[in-house]
């Protein structure tokens, strides 16, 4: 079997093991969450993992903050308080922050959809008693996660599709199950919207 496939499988499985172990490590030492800000994105302070709605809303809040930085930058540039080169460097940095943010949150939301049962996901959404606007926003967030993950899958697995069709099918089968679950979650959220 191809070396790339073995390496790809190894990395995927090694990460799965790390993720499983890390949950236990964190539960046994909650200070790790306080000490490592990046862990606060995925975990609550009690060591539990955040649910889909928490993640989607936090992403929205962080995006508002980044867009506010962008507006400030645009204002400074319009007032000639910044030259074009500096402005472009900063804008590129902001665009990268938005892209990184989306990739991370997409991953975390998709992982929950992949690992939890549909009923667990539904319960985690129902408990918030969301209004129509928030439900619609959440449904759109999940739809966007599915689209981004399909795109990411296509980009990352082109070589397997050309050379190793059975492996590509195996990987596609895995992702398509999660995509199908995420569509079900999206439809469920839309069904909660009151007419």
């Amino acid at each position: 079997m191809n070396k790339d496939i073995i390496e790809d499988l190894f990395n995927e499985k090694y990460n799965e093991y790390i993720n499983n172990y890390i949950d236990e490590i964190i539960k046994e030492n909650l200070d790790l969450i306080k000490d490592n800000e990046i862990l606060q994105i995925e975990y609550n302070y009690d060591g539990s993992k955040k649910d889909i709605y928490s993640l989607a809303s936090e992403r929205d809040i962080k995006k508002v903050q980044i867009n506010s930085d962008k507006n400030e930058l645009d204002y400074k540039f319009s007032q000639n308080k910044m030259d074009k080169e500096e402005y472009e460097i900063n804008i590129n940095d902001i665009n990268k922050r938005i892209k990184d943010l989306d990739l991370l949150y997409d991953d975390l939301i998709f992982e929950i959809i992949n690992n939890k049962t549909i009923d667990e996901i539904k319960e985690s959404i129902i408990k918030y008693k969301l209004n129509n606007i928030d439900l619609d926003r959440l449904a759109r967030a999940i739809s966007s996660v599915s689209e981004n993950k399909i795109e990411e899958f296509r980009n990352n697995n082109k070589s397997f599709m050309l050379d190793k069709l059975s492996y590509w099918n195996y990987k596609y089968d895995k992702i398509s199950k999660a995509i199908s679950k995420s569509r079900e979650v999206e439809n469920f959220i839309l069904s909660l919207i009151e007419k």
Partner: protein
Amino acid sequence: MNISKDSLKKIKEELFNKNISEEEKDIIIKKINQEIEELISKLNPESDPIDE
């Protein structure tokens, strides 16, 4: 704070390496290799050329 997949992955790897002994890591690697072997045998090897 740098918010990215890579930064989260990096911190998890660091914590994993700090908290897991070499012996445990060896066991995990053996398990993974075994899982990979089983998976590969399930995939249809005849439809794919074998490189090695």
